[in-house]
């Protein structure tokens, strides 16, 4: 497809200027004026030639002999009529030439249209990739309400962290008991610029780190255990096809760089990080025993609560 398109572009590189010139001649005011001028010049030269020949013929007889006014008028009109009759007699040829000229125009337009079609297909693919990457969201964790006691205002919950390498929640949840029933699940959030997200080069990163509630101030909250044995947060684990074009070892090496960004905002900005803050989505309605609250990170930025994907 690419080679054919290149060939068409090369042919059109020659045809387009010719086609543009033909269209200019036959569809613009200036083009019509040019063709009229050409016709007038042709007629003028034809009449002039005929007059010259007649003048020479007269001078051959006598130096002082000149064509009379009536003779000149006769030559003028007869040459005009002859010229128009010659044009009419050549009409089939002229029509043939016209057909060829507009064939060139048609061919050039066809090539341009094919080129536009191919360019548009590329653009559509690009836009679809951008829309797909911006529209993505990733699960951070699931909060399963084990028990809620509204009398003593106490909530027991299990936090399941999502491990993307396993494409599932980790089997051993973290158990938390906390006073209150409006549970704030606090996370560190690092959002990248749209330009990084659109191309799929980067994904917004989230690290759960604390739980508190409407009763418990953040300073008194419960810190969460969210990293694996080498200190990498589970949410950062990615399946091979989720790590866009770089190998696993490089990916985890990049995570160490991100730890640097946390303490170096200037460097963070240069790497395309537009915001770094903490966010806590929370379920403000009455929670119930057995309820599952799923936290997601949106690629357009920020955290949201969404329903659990159920089979």
């Amino acid at each position, binding site marked *: 497809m690419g080679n054919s398109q290149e060939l068409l572009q090369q042919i059109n590189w020659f045809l387009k200027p010719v086609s543009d010139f033909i269209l200019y001649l036959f569809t613009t005011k200036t083009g019509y004026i040019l063709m009229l001028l050409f016709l007038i010049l042709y007629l003028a030269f034809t009449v002039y030639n005929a007059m010259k020949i007649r003048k020479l013929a007269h001078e051959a007889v006598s130096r002082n002999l000149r064509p009379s006014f009536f003779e000149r008028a006769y030559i003028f009109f007869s040459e005009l009529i002859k010229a128009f009759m010659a044009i009419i007699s050549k009409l089939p040829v002229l029509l*043939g030439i016209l*057909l*060829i000229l507009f*064939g060139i125009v*048609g*061919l050039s*337009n*066809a090539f341009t*249209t*094919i080129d*536009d*079609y191919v360019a*548009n*297909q590329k653009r*559509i693919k690009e*836009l679809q990739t*951008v*829309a797909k990457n*911006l*529209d993505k*969201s990733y699960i951070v964790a699931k909060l399963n309400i084990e028990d809620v006691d509204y009398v003593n205002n106490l909530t027991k919950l299990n936090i399941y962290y999502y491990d993307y390498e396993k494409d599932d929640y980790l089997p051993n949840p973290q158990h938390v008991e906390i006073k*209150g029933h*409006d549970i*704030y699940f*606090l996370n*560190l*959030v690092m*959002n990248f610029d*749209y330009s990084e997200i659109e191309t799929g080069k980067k994904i917004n990163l989230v690290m759960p780190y604390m739980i*508190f*509630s*409407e*009763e*418990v*101030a*953040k*300073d008194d909250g419960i810190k969460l255990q969210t990293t694996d044995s080498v200190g990498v947060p589970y949410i950062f684990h990615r399946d091979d096809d989720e790590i866009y074009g770089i190998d696993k070892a490089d990916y985890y090496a990049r995570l160490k760089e991100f730890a640097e960004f*946390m*303490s170096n*905002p200037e460097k963070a900005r240069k790497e395309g990080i*537009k*915001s*770094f*803050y*903490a*966010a*806590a*989505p*929370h*379920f*403000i*309605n*009455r929670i119930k025993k057995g309820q599952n609250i799923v936290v997601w*990170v*949106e690629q*357009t*930025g*920020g*955290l*949201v609560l969404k329903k659990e994907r159920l089979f």
Partner: protein
Amino acid sequence: MKGKILIGILILGVIAAGAYYGFGYLTKKQEKKIAKLEDKINFLKKETVPMRFKILQKDTANITFAVKFYDQDSTEFTADTIRLAGQELSFDFAVIPIKKDYNIAFPTKIFTNKLPAKNGKSLFEYYDDHGFPQTMSINGADEEYINLMTDLFAKIKAGDTEKIKGIYGSMVQDIAKLNEFQVNHIYKIVIHTKGGIEVLEDI
């Protein structure tokens, strides 16, 4: 010979015309698809800023900050200076999904690392315009929109959120020692159409 040439030219002309009109039709369809995709991308990237704030003073006991509120047309309509116990500011919102991929957010309260959420400072009074939430005000709003926003706001203020489908809370704050809000820097809170809330420096 001439006849064959003419026929050849005619066939070429028909093919060129076919290609022109065929691909022309397809190109028009593509242009519609491109416009639709561009609209979707613009919608996904759409952001509103209901609040901006600036820390004026911060010490081991309290934090003093100025806060400004804006409507959907980015027009500022009120401002205040607030002092709370604590050092980290938490801005809480009620997020409501109106339709697929379109969420709105109402500022509910501000609290701190020392102040639990239930004792936080309520923000409703700052944008309550005779029952209509001023942060949702937009030029050209029709009656249906105004009634919907007024109804949702009334339910949120009254704590009657069980009647609002899909509603949840979303809080954003700075991170002590890692990325604290700096004194005299202006920050904005950004609401994304997909429901995410972000806080970043307003440079």
